[in-house]
Every structure is written in C-alpha cells, then in structure tokens.
C-alpha cells in the first residue's frame, strides 16, 4: 500500500510539477510551459555543463554580468542558495554574459567565491534564452521545460524564496 501511494505521488509530480501561482513568492511568475533553449557551456574552471544532464531535476538558471547594479546586489544571495542547495535535487546554473575570466574571477572572488559561473563568452547562449534583461532567472522543470521566471533581481536568501526553492527541490524526482 505504501509503495502504491509513493508511486501515485511520483506520477502526480511528474505530470504536473508546477506549484500553484498563489504559492509563488513576490516577483516570480509562471510561464506557459515550453522547451528550454539549449544551454551547454564551460564553467570558469573549464568543466562543461549541459542542461540536458539535469533532466529529472529542477534547474535554477541565472544570467548576470558584473557591470549590472542589480546583479551585484543579488549575487551574494545566490551564493547563499548555492551553499544551501548544492548537491540536492535542485541544480544551479549561473551564466556570466560576455565578460572575461579575469573580470568575473576578480569580482566573484570577493563576493561569492563558491560560484563557478558558466562563461557565455560571446553572449550567444544568453541571446538564445532572450532574458528580459540582466539579471534574469528562469526555472526549468524536470522535463526540461521553462516554467517560472523571476522579474529582475530577487533576494534569494529570504525565507519565502528559500521555501519556494525547497518546494522545487522536493518536487523533483530523486536523482538516479
């Protein structure tokens, strides 16, 4: 009986993993589900990440640049998200748009040393995703579809945002 209940719950989650709109924290909007654009980049340490490898998990996809004021304000809160969610069923992809490794390293070294950003050297991946501006954060569901968008910079380390991220983490089927 217990196994049957777990199976039913798993099916429900995989069919409709979105949260109710009323549960969304301020500034997060639900999108009409559509396939996320391709995202395959090397991080600042040279390690390749492909969003396809995150199938079965929710993915926090964030675009930023050091020159952008709201990004500078938001980055320490993203560091907190990484500290809390690294290695869980919520994958985190932080993409720097069009800046040099030196610029990015010098900036993050002080403010957020745990972030290993993916380097979109020519800005082509960012253009493909067409964010509304920088910073921009999307949430991609375990089936690889865009489901939520954060409007502008958000204080990700505040309780209601942590709760939202926790719900996504719990909603994802367990990693294989």
């Amino acid at each position, binding site marked *: 009986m217990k196994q049957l209940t777990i199976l039913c719950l798993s099916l429900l989650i995989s069919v409709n993993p979105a949260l109710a709109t009323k549960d969304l924290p301020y*500034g997060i*909007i639900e999108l009409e589900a559509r396939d996320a654009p391709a995202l395959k980049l090397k991080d*600042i*340490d040279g390690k390749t990440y492909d969003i396809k490898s995150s199938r079965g998990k929710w993915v926090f996809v964030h675009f930023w*640049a*050091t*020159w*952008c*004021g709201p990004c*500078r304000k938001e980055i320490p809160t993203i560091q907190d998200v990484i500290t809390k969610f690294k290695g869980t069923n919520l994958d985190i992809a932080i993409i720097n*748009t*069009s*800046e*040099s*490794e030196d*610029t990015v*390293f*010098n*900036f*993050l*070294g*002080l*403010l957020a*040393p*745990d*972030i*290993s*950003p993916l380097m979109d*050297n*020519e*800005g*082509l991946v*960012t*253009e493909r995703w067409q964010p*509304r*501006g*920088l910073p921009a954060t999307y949430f991609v569901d375990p089936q690889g579809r865009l489901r939520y968008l954060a*409007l*502008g910079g958000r204080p990700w380390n505040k309780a209601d945002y942590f709760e939202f991220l926790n719900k996504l983490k719990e909603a994802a089927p367990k990693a294989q």
Partner: protein
Amino acid sequence: MKRRSLSAVFSSVTLILFSFNGVAAEDTPLIYEDQDVRMRFVQFTPQQISAFYEGREFSKTAVEKLVKSCYVTLILKNKTSDILWLDLDQWEFSHNGKKFNRHTRAFWEKQWDDIKLKKAHRSTFNWTLMPAVRNLYPQEGVGGRIPIPMQSAPFSLTLNFPTGKNKQGKMKSVKIENLNCKQNDLK
C-alpha cells in the same frame, strides 16, 4: 571557483571600489513619479561613458564612437496592476518643437560592423541598452540607456505607454522637459 591564486582575490577590492566610484559620480538624478510609473533619469558625461566601456575592455575606436552619442539612462517601474508597454518607437525626443530620433540597435550594428567589434562587446553594449519593446508586468522595473545624437541644448522626451495585455488599454503619456546631455566637467 578554484582557478586562480588567493592573491588575485584581493585585487578584486580595487575593482569593486572602481565599480562603485562609477555610481558615486552620478549627479542628482531627475525623478518623476505618479500613480502609474516611477522614473529615474541619470545623465552621464562622455568621460563617464568612456570609463565604463574602457573598463569593459572596449577598444579605443569603439569608445570614440560611443562618446559621440548622448545616453539618456532611465530606470522605470510599472506601478500599475496591469501590463504597461515600454515601446521606444512610441517615445518622442524633441528640441524646440522639432523631433529627433534615437540611435537604434541597427544604427549601432552598422557602427560595430565598420570597426569589426567583437561579439562579446556587442553583446555587453546591447545589454546596457534599454529594451526596445517590453510588456512590463505589474510592479516590474526595467532600466537601460537610450542613445541619442549629442545635444547642445535642453530637450524634452514624451513617453507614451500603451497599456493592457494586447495594448488595448488607454495610452499613458508623460512629458519630461529640460533633459540635458551632460558634458565633461572641465574644472
């Protein structure tokens, strides 16, 4: 992130201070607010524009092209509970009753093609611009630069905002007078 030595981390202090100096160099911004929108206009001198892009490793020829324009830098917030449309083609710049056009992204692409500006810098420049069209959600903000031909006298800007999901609502209009292209401080 483990790529570099720890000493490099401390050099970032200089970078951060430099970044915030850019903010400190702003004059008192012009602020407009009513029940529907909040707008904050900031003007930068050619020297400030030059410093910003040089700091992002733009070439001298690119910076020379950039400082020939004036940049109306604006942060805008939709205070309504409906969609408010940012559509730069519906905004009118004028001086003494005579309209003039902003420098569009197509204008800049031609400039960048002429000097073969690399893709990364085109991308950075484009992201510093105000989006040409945007359906602003309730309480959403947007910011960026609107390049215009350099002006030697004050000018006005009429901002027309269509409203509603399909622009079916009443047009919201605001006219801002006495905007300036701020010049370098020669002291």
